[in-house]
């Protein structure tokens, strides 16, 4: 809570203070406010190359693509009608978001202890573990996905071992369904949680935790009320990144999932590649973008300190 208060933007603070105190102090506040605004936008001109690049090579093509959704095959909202009239597409959309949600949850649960371990072990070891995490990101995505297939399938290593030990009689169905997709994708996403989270944890002063203990906090209290809140920027930025990436994931769900778990990217690819129905595909893409932006808005509401600000602080 404390962190949230200090991080909330100075502009709104001065604004509300001025409103409460009446007109005269407000006048006095104006130069101060514009000065702080100027201070905040001081480096804005440095943004121009990046903005130009994004505008030209990302925004313009994106808008072109989205326009197809209302222009092809005939101008109008026909594509959106088709998308909303069919309950199957609602199901596809639901699949997409529930898979992304589950993957985010599991990679947070698994990534958190890993990031913590990297932070706690002696420095040289931590670097090694971090390198191993990074190394897995450099290996071909297809190779990694197929390895999961080898491990998880009915005649795979895990099922054979479990059956040999007599724990199960029938092979567990761990692939070509939701389970397979969530396992495979969580594994791929873990580095994207670990990297920001580990950076956040590294920046936490151990003395703070010590101070907590000295003040009488039990280890549990210390963890939940001191350590976890301090990790929040890393958790939120990692979680958001994984969630958004998962929404657009294609290869892993296509290989490890069953067809009944179709996600939106697969639907879009089908329309783009097999049926050249770019209008409907772009309507689907627009829907995904809009819903993601809405979620992003709520995220910003819930999380006043922006992930960018948090990483700048380090």
């Amino acid at each position, binding site marked *: 809570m404390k962190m949230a208060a200090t991080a909330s933007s100075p502009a709104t603070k001065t604004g509300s203070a001025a409103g409460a105190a009446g007109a005269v102090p407000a006048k006095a506040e104006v130069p101060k406010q514009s000065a702080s605004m100027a201070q905040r936008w001081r480096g804005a001109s440095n943004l121009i190359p990046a903005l130009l690049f994004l505008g030209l090579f990302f925004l313009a093509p994106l808008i072109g693509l989205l326009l197809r959704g209302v222009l092809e095959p005939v101008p109008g909202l026909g594509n959106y009608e088709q998308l909303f009239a069919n309950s199957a597409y609602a199901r596809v959309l639901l699949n997409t978001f529930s898979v992304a949600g589950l993957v985010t949850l599991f990679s947070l649960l698994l990534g958190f202890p890993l990031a913590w371990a990297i932070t706690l072990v002696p420095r040289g070891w931590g670097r090694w573990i971090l390198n191993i995490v990074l190394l897995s990101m450099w290996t071909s995505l297809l190779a990694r996905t197929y390895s999961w297939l080898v491990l998880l399938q009915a*005649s*795979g290593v895990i099922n054979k071992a479990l059956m040999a030990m007599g724990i199960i009689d029938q092979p567990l169905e761990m692939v070509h369904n939701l389970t397979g997709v969530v396992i495979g994708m969580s594994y791929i996403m873990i580095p994207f949680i670990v990297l920001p989270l580990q950076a956040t944890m590294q920046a936490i002063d151990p003395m703070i935790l010590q101070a907590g203990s000295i003040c009488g906090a039990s280890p549990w209290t210390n963890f939940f009320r001191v350590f976890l809140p301090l990790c929040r920027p890393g958790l939120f930025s990692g979680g958001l990144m994984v969630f958004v990436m998962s929404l657009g994931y294609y290869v892993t769900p296509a290989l490890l999932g069953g*067809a*009944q778990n179709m996600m939106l990217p697969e639907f879009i690819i*089908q329309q783009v590649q097999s*049926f050249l129905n770019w209008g409907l595909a772009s309507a689907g893409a627009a829907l995904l973008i809009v819903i993601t932006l809405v979620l992003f808005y709520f995220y910003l509401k819930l999380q006043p300190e922006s992930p960018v600000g948090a990483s700048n602080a380090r």
Partner: protein
Amino acid sequence: MVLNKRATAVLFAGLLATVSHAAIAAESVNFVSWGGSTQDAQKQAWADPFSKASGVTVVQDGPTDYGKLKAMVESGNVQWDVVDVEADFALRAASEGLLEPLDFSVIQRDKIDPRFVSDYGVGSFFFSFVLGYNESKLGASKPQDWSALFDTKTYPGKRALYKWPSPGVLELALLADGVAADKLYPLDLDRAFKKLDTIKKDIVWWGGGAQSQQLLASGEASMGQFWNGRIHALQEDGAPVGVSWKQNLVMADILVVPKGTKNKAAAMKFLANASSAKGQADFSNLTAYAPVNVDSVARLDSVLAPNLPTAYAKDQITLDFAYWAKNGPAIATRWNEWLVK
């Protein structure tokens, strides 16, 4: 001054690019296919001998991407000259105006099996969907035809089926349900999906050849619908895999030329060579896919020939590419609805 110099440099570089581009364009063909062993064979059987004989360089590119093809034609910047596509797509693309009409004064049309040639495309090769099964999974009971897929009592295990809404799965469901081969089209979608409902939970879907082989060889699936060349490759590797050719369903790849290609004349010569009796036979001998040229059959390797769809013409059903080209998108909507239901 500086600006001037730079401008000259840019102009010069631009000029150089145009000139060198023109030089390459004059005698090269960009050939696009699906990669893997198929494209290797296409290079070996068609491109290399063609380059040697005609002096035209053949640049291999890929994999085939229909979206990319459409984007190239629409933008007028066509980089691909000859593209290997699926038969139903070839017809759909032609009706959307994405293809060049072929020059049949160069390509010998009367030697091509009429199932695999149109004004806008000539066959690359054809293949069959066959019933493949894992012998070590099924033991003594050998499945005979598509109806075995729906008999989970006699033949336990998962069924591997092709996951895209394209010709094949619906047809085999209808055949298994007792529809006569000549009464398949127009497809009775309700009946097909109802039949598929009975095994829906037993289906594992494959999206590509390698995946299908992995499913069958590992026993993850006990049987299913496969490309005949992939089954043959598994048998060559000594996997315990059996095959039934009863009611094998013929599908084809077609070679097309995107509209606006800069190397049209060279592309036509390439197609003439690829669809020739020798080109087709050489390719078949490398892959176990079947030749579209009627004169190629005599040139096939005698050991290999019994494993090609050409040897099972009697019990063969050719999928209706034209029907799919027209109705594909509508069927896909139904298909997706059924899948996620």
